[in-house]
């Protein structure tokens, strides 16, 4: 199943470690700014919109 993993910058090292440990080091990944918890929804939507192309690429590569 096509998959892309989204995570914030603070969890980049963890994401790589988990993917590598699971034998999926090349798993398509898209990094979001950190933190997101305290940002208003429009900012979060904008951050995702900026990365929409990368997400689609990850799902179709």
């Amino acid at each position, binding site marked *: 199943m096509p998959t892309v993993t989204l995570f914030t910058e*603070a*969890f980049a090292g*963890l994401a790589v*470690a*988990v993917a590598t*440990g699971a034998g999926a080091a090349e798993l398509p990944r898209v990094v979001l700014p950190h933190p997101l918890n305290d940002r208003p929804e429009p900012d979060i939507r904008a951050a995702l919109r900026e990365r929409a192309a990368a997400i689609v690429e990850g799902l179709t590569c």
Partner: protein
Amino acid sequence: MLTSTVEDLPDDVEAVSAWLHERGHTDGLPVVPPTRERVLRMLEGTTRDPATDLGAVPPTNGAATVEKLAINAVMAGCRPEYLPVVLTAFDLLLQPGFQLAGMQPTTNPLTPMLIVNGPVRHRVGLNCSTGVMGPGWQANATIGRAVRLALINLGGARPGEVDKCTQGFVGKYTLCVGENEEDSPWAPLSADRGFERGQDVLTVVGVNSAINIHDSSGDWNDVVKTFCGSLPSVGTPNVVDPHATPVLALNPLHARILTDGGFDKAALREHLVANTTLPADALSERRAHLRREEGEEDYLVDGRIPIVNDADSLQLVVTGGMGGGHSCFLPAGHYGQAQSAIVDI
């Protein structure tokens, strides 16, 4: 016999500690250099084959072989007779029900607590009495430390990198206690978990930092009232996990005083769980959402939010000395549950 890579380093604590620390293989404290001779001596503490693989340690899935665990036990300062406890800890940590994969990278201040029952406590010199969760005893200090080092070195849980614990917790260096069976008025935790009294049993449970519960009254009414007021907290992780297995560590004096009120362990569990509930609207929207993820049917019990939905989930252990009226509650902050097994030599 040994298969690990051998580095050309001097047998010197400062040099080896610096070399390992630069590579993220320590907890920040100096380590005993794991020379071939020391590792072989450590392996004399077990009958298990060094090549035996206990399983993959998440999230990086390093193999928890007996040899690798012995290396970490040397680094931690363990004696060979401690090794079976360290090995059994990994037998349990790698059980699916413990959910180590969730614990290792979490932002939650979580660590495995090791609780030991049976004669093995005395064979290895494990403190069960005064200062049981503090410094001063080699077995308590180094068994728990060996587990932490192996979680870092085999599971990749390097603080800040993979271990994303927001503030950390001093118990992540080591947290290993013996139950004070000799001063307890009750059957030990191991009996609650289905083992015969007198068997060497290890229980591992994921816990947060301890909440001290102080009441120096000799009246059981006072003690149980203080317990009931101290356990519930809207910020405590286990209120969002109805099936968690938190630990209530009673000092033997509190346990004896409670027997004056007719409490055995089952009665105390039932009383505490029934009388430490929170109102249905106590949780913030976010925390209510987290609790509801476990199932709407488990959200409330009799219209209230209990600290655990099933009284048997509350792990009661009697530990520490009788010098004062201090017990503690160690909330369970993840979705795994306590695991127990006989200590496998």
